[in-house]
């Protein structure tokens, strides 16, 4: 009740404007929250696994995207329900932290909430449920670590990495070319990886898309590709042994930030100013040329006259290079970004083996490739495909694969996929449940059921009978004491995930279970929702 009575029996209002607010309390609030969150999880669940389906999303402006990536789906769905939004954030934090498994984490949260709902119906207090989930989660994580295996990422030409990338790519529309794309991703990551520090700077991998061709034509360019061409059509199209001058100032007369007026009051002033202006251009080009640079990349525009002077001085130049590209080029070529013409010195130039213009298709679009950079090896993955939707989805898929490989370089422990890790944890959690003598026992048992939900969902998506296949896999895990038994999604005839080579990173799995549990706990703590009525 938002209405209370004082000592004299007069009513007073606790919640202002309560008439215009919607309020839900207690069990009703729990259930409504859980149902909303479950609706999201249900949408995503059919995207899980190698045979998962895609979602088609139409933006407010009518643009279409087709994707299988959990984080992208929930981001573009325009979800307004407050608890459902928690799941969106869940998926996004998995994306930010790990980069892969964004669908799985939401599906797991959905399964947990489903279990919570039945427990609530049994009359178990939400906090007991969340305590139970918490304890079960700890057990599951510990067990994950014990069953994880270290792999040798170097062995056999990085075969393990390629397999892990293939697992990540297997569920996407590009799955047909997963091996090729996986190799591209692995090569790209290894090219830029710092294996001593076990770290990968993903900024050094640029993913550029270009419609046309097909996904097979996707290739790795050991250099930087920028979507720009030379500023003057008659400049040379190829520079070898390039010395790159990277500028963030325009080839234009300076514009002081202070507001000012220059008054021309006589003909001499006019002439002087004109000469000065002409001199600016000559000086600018001279400064660049004198430093020994043979190509100039500029973040800003060029005046026509400056542009021509550059051409006359045999100095090919590129204008309007985007800020991120400028930074990338600086990193790769060892160039210092030069903010003023006066500060150009030979040491600040970057070096690259070659800079050249390449052309695509009939519509005469040109791009610039910078290869054999002096410092780090920045690489570009050029994605091709029959339509914008395909290349966009391929870009997201390759990003996932790259993240997986990076995670493996950081931490080379893996668990097996195909739902086998979840099943193994479920068995462990179930055993633990029997040892707990309080109400939490039920919650812990439900947690195990929720974990089983993942393989069952996988089986469902592959057209297998979920109950039979999960039961079989579980029984075999127990009988053979083999935690690698999962669901045979690809119908390869074996359920041993080691033979199928379905690798997932330990860090991703751990993160999935932990994040999902956390969000579920949070949702279970909400017992009162107050919101404006009219949303």
């Amino acid at each position: 009740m938002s209405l209370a009575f004082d000592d004299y029996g007069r009513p007073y209002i606790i919640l202002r404007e309560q008439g215009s607010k919607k309020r839900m309390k207690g069990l009703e609030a729990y259930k409504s929250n859980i149902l909303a969150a479950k609706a999201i999880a249900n949408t995503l669940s059919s995207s899980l696994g190698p045979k998962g389906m895609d979602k088609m999303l139409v933006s407010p402006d009518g643009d279409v995207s087709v994707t299988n990536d959990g984080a992208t789906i929930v981001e573009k769905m325009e979800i307004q329900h407050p608890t459902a939004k928690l799941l969106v954030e869940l998926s996004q934090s998995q994306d930010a932290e790990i980069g892969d498994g964004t669908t799985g984490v939401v599906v797991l949260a959905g399964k947990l909430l489903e279990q919570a709902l039945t427990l609530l119906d049994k009359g178990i207090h939400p906090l007991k449920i969340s305590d139970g989930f918490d304890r079960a989660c700890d057990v599951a994580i510990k067990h994950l670590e014990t069953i994880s295996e270290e792999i040798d990422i170097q062995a056999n030409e990085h075969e393990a990495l390629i397999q892990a990338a293939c697992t990540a790519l297997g569920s996407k529309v590009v799955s047909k070319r997963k091996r090729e794309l996986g190799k591209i991703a692995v090569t790209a990551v290894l090219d830029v990886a710092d294996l001593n520090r076990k770290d990968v700077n993903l900024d050094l991998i640029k993913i550029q898309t270009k419609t046309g061709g097909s996904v097979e034509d996707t290739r790795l360019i050991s250099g930087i590709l920028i979507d720009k061409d030379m500023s003057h059509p008659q400049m040379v199209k190829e520079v070898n042994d390039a010395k790159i001058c990277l500028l963030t100032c325009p080839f234009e007369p300076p514009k002081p930030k202070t507001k000012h007026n220059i008054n021309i009051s006589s003909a001499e002033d006019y002439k002087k100013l004109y000469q000065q202006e002409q001199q600016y251009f000559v000086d600018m080009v001279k400064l660049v040329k004198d430093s020994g640079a043979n190509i100039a990349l500029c973040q800003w525009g060029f005046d026509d006259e400056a542009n021509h002077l550059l051409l006359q001085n045999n100095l090919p130049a590129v204008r309007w290079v985007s800020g991120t590209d400028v930074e990338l080029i600086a990193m790769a070529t060892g160039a210092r970004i030069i903010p003023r013409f006066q500060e150009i010195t030979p040491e600040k130039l970057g070096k690259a083996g070659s800079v050249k213009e390449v052309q695509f298709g009939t519509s005469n679009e040109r791009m610039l490739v910078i290869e054999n950079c002096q410092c780090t090896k920045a690489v570009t993955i050029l994605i091709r495909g029959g339509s914008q939707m395909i290349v966009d989805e391929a870009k997201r898929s390759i990003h996932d694969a790259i993240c997986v490989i990076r995670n493996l370089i950081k931490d080379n422990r893996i668990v097996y996929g195909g739902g086998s890790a979840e099943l193994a944890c479920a068995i462990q959690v179930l055993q633990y449940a029997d040892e707990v003598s309080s109400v939490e026992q039920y919650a812990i048992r439900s947690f195990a059921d929720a974990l089983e939900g993942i393989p069952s969902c996988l089986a469902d998506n592959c057209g297998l009978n979920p109950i039979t296949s999960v039961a079989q896999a579980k029984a075999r895990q127990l009988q053979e004491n083999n935690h690698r038994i999962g669901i045979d999604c690809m119908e390869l005839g074996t359920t041993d995930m080691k033979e199928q080579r379905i690798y997932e990173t330990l860090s991703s799995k751990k993160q999935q279970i932990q994040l999902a549990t956390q969000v579920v706990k949070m949702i279970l703590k909400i017992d009162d929702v107050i919101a404006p009525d009219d949303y």
Partner: protein
Amino acid sequence: MDIVGNVLPQVLKDEATEDKGEMARLQSFVGAIAVADLVKTTLGPKGMDKILKPTGPGQEMTHITVTNDGATILKSMYVENPAAKILIEISKTQDEEVGDGTTTVAVLAGELLREGEKLIQKRIHPQQVIAGWRIARDVALKRLRDISTENDIESQEFHNDLIKIAKTTLSSKLITTDRDYFADLCVKAVLRLKGSSNLDYIQIIKIPGGTIRDSYLDDGFILKKQITIGCKRRIENAKILVANTAMDYDKIKIYGTKVKVNSMDKVAEIEAAEKEKMKHKVDKILQYQPTVFVNRQLIYNYPEQLLADAGITVIEHADFEGMERVAAATGAEILSTFDAPERRDQILGNCELIEEIMIGEEKMIKFSGCKKNEACTIVLRGSSIHILDEVDRSIHDVLCVLITTVKNRRVVWGGGNSEMQMAAACDEEAKRVQGKQALAIEAYARALRQLPTIICDNGGYDSAELVQNFKVELEKGNLSYGLNMNDGSIGDMKELGVKECMRVKEQALLAASEAAELIMRVDDIVKCAPRKRERA
């Protein structure tokens, strides 16, 4: 509400909708097939055209387009169905990548989905269908590459191939009656590029009047501009200076300048200085000793007069593309500053003759006998601007195909031959594959056969009979047979000389399969609330 009657909380925003499973799939199929059906009547030599009418106040009757080009039709359509949008997108990509086959790609994707829908009704899982399609696509692609032939780029055969390809492409267009003439014209234009693929250097000028037959390829290069009044109309052995510089009042570019004076005398002084500056610039230009001066920007009367006085022919306001072409044709450098007269020889462009000519009612400038003969001009004539636009699109398609062929060099027989051969390859493969995928492979073959079927239907022939006979001929080993759309029979393409560019077919096959797969994989469509627009 869910099945048991619980009221579900609203999760998405108002007006946002979500369709799942069957509903989502139904929507995709309906949309994609509708788009394919729309453009399929334009396919083939007997295909029909469409009139595109723009919407919006005041322009209902203006800017009408009559066209047969798939990409143009699809681009101008406003569709809301997301699957239909994917088809439009692949058609656009096809246009950018190879320039032709834009209808084929949309129709093939549509036919694949039509077959896919039937399979789904038979309770075959979409992923199984996709698995089958993937096998089929690889087989088809392999067959396509196997049956293609390659000729040396310099050889006469290759030249003949190009002409045949141009004719085949033209046969489905408006100018099909004059296709021999135009095929020759386009091939000549493309060969002038000498292997470069920069279409910008082929300029197409459209002038209403005359008949289509009056169109011609000009050896020289035609600029759609006039020579300024008071200059010579005919210059032999011209030295051309191409510039991109301000010749109006040439303002000072230093930021924040402003003229502020206290007497009229000063104004006059500054005016004189300004004039002086312009004169100075002209003097510098004169140091190059050009006979013709082409500027991208406007030229005011004063500098124009100065230049004319020096006996220089002035062409002003050439747009950027025109200027680039002049530069390419004459080998000139585009100047913006004029301080290096010693490099005169590199900078100035040469051509034997510049003259003002009249085409129809319009005056143009023709550059003939240029130093670098890369740029050329196709002058199109026709009775109305709608026809000219359509001819322009057709010629563009042909040029794109030819350039693609020059790059790739592989050719296949036309008349539906490649589609039928690919279909046959799929059928053979289907016999060897175990499992449900085989059904999808057969479906793929059927979709491929739909293309010749539609071409027959559009021609008003008995498609079922023709396609079956066609199949039999191929089975007999007559591998160069195809549809003869002139008399509705099956004929030897070798005799008819119908060839097509392999790259166009390849791209259409790849893009259509990718799009069909993309649409097939969808089981859920979420539409966000449309953005509210303030109506002005």
